[in-house]
């Protein structure tokens, strides 16, 4: 078990190395002088030279990469070109709203999707099943910003029930905090809920066809006990896996949702960085998001033994 955990943790090293290499290479594989592209159309020669120096583009490539990784390992993500502040500082300032939004979305999605999937599977072929499947295909198809604007139209333009913009920390009271969080969370959780509900239904259908479910029913357990105690627990591994994979969708959604609702989080920072072509900042954000994705999936891999004792490493 311990050996497995160590091996699994070590396996993330090459993955993150490839991510780092990709993020580094981006700047150098691009056609033309990256400094000139970052500086934009109105830049002077002096501007370009300054960015050249700031990015260390004068040194040989292997030295640049070595130095960059060395700084990275010490938590130094470089300096933002636009603000002249450390990228890590800028990112830390923006983490709270994003993590709040992500956690509330995962919470809402899991709490709605799993009952939906279980219900659909236990009544396969019924109208409930069909409704869940229709919801799931719609959830995949309607992009997050379209859902967001429909919500804004209903709850802010038409009825004025919820605030349209911004983020309020929990320190300023529960209602201001929650009211700003409701619409972004609902918009963002739609695709995530669709994904988890679909996988829950599929996994449950597979498990419900097993012999031990028939045995459990035959020995007189109520159908609720069978569904939750026997079936759901055995169906958990694919569901948990898809939650991990779905984090990529969540990260994408966060960037869009924060733009729509003007939430000052990492997503909004990403968009600002694109508009200003602040490349060190874009690199830093991609690294942080990817590291979060890899970390969540590592934890999920390690959780398998909890759900399925047959999995022994």
């Amino acid at each position, binding site marked *: 078990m311990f050996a497995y955990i160590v091996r699994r943790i070590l396996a993330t090293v090459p*993955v993150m190395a490839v991510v780092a290499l990709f993020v580094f290479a981006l700047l150098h594989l691009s056609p033309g002088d990256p400094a000139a592209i970052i500086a934009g159309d109105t830049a002077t020669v002096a501007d370009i030279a300054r960015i050249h120096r700031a990015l260390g583009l004068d040194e040989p490539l292997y030295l640049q990469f070595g130095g960059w990784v060395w700084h990275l390992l010490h938590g130094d993500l470089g300096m933002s070109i636009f603000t002249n502040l450390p990228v890590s500082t800028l990112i830390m300032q923006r983490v709270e709203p994003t993590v709040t939004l992500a956690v509330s979305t995962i919470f809402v999605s899991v709490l709605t999707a799993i009952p939906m999937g279980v219900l659909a599977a236990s009544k396969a072929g019924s109208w409930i099943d069909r409704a869940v499947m229709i919801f799931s295909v719609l959830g995949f*198809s*309607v992009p997050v910003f379209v859902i967001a*604007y429909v919500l804004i139209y209903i709850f802010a333009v038409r009825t004025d029930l919820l605030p349209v913009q911004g983020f309020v920390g929990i320190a300023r009271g529960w209602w201001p905090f929650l009211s700003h969080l409701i619409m972004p969370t609902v918009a963002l959780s739609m695709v995530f809920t669709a994904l988890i509900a679909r996988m829950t239904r599929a996994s449950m259908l597979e498990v419900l066809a097993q012999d031990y479910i028939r045995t459990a029913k035959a020995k007189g357990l109520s159908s609720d006990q069978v569904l939750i105690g026997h079936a759901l627990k055995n169906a958990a591994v694919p569901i948990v896996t898809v939650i991990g994979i779905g984090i*990529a969708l969540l*990260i*994408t959604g966060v960037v*869009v949702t924060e733009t729509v609702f003007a939430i000052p989080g990492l997503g909004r920072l990403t968009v600002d960085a694109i508009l200003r072509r602040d490349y060190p900042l874009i690199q830093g954000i991609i690294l942080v998001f990817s590291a979060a*994705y890899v970390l969540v999936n590592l934890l999920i891999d390690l959780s398998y033994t909890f759900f399925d004792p047959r999995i022994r490493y």
Partner: protein
Amino acid sequence: MELGRLGDEIGAPLPAAGDRALAAAPAARQRRAWRYIRRHPTIVIGAALLGLMLLMAVLAPYLGTVDPQAISPVDRLEWPSLQHWFGTDMLGRDVYSRTVYGARVSLTVGLMVALLSTGLGLAIGLATGFSRWADAILMRVMDGLMSIPPVLIAIALMALTRASLQNVIFAITVGEVPRVTRLVRGVVLGLRDLPFVEAARASGTSLPRILWRHILPNTVPLLLVQGTYTAASAMIVEAILSFLGAGTPPNIPSWGNIMAEGRALFEIAYYIVLFPGAFLSVTVLAVNLLGDGLRDALDPRLARRM
């Protein structure tokens, strides 16, 4: 659509079957078509919706549209009316015309990304399946790329290149290739040691020929389904990129661009955002339904599972 035609050909009465068969043919054909629709409603609805969108994109100049880029400051921010079906934006451009022309961008991006990522993923996947060292290196690269959300890869690439439709297609493709590669590699690994491949190898068949004759045909159904889903996600990613200001250049009306321009005015002119949003959603829905239908039709085992 492809499958429907195939079914018709197989079931069509033989020319020599005589007068009776000829007389019964239309009715029988109708019954068969009806049965097909009842058994695969999603594939038919998806194909029909997508067909409509394709038609709209191709016939855009003939659908009562005006120049989607024509600016008319006098008519700015007009509500939907008989003259401007979807209203006008802050520069007085006709939102209906822009939305209809926007279908061209979405469908082009969806189709091109699906084709390119399928082609590239297929090539890399076949290589990894048959060469251990290529497998070791390429799959580590793919694992790494897969841990960066595709939209972020596209954002990073777009931030470094000039905005153009080709660059958008390329940037989205990079993020989609690893998924196809994984899929193809899975098929190759499953087939590589099966007796019929071993027999082909033992009888001296060259590797390219094995790949072409024995492996490739087995990947087609999966790639068709995956390609459809890729097209759907590529259309969403294009809209997101344009919406964030990192996508299709502003001089091309794409659904994401129209929505981005309407963003600041949403509370006074929400129609600018909602019309292209609805068209985008319906198109993606059509492609997803088609994908679900294809999957059910091509792989009954998967159909039961999902």
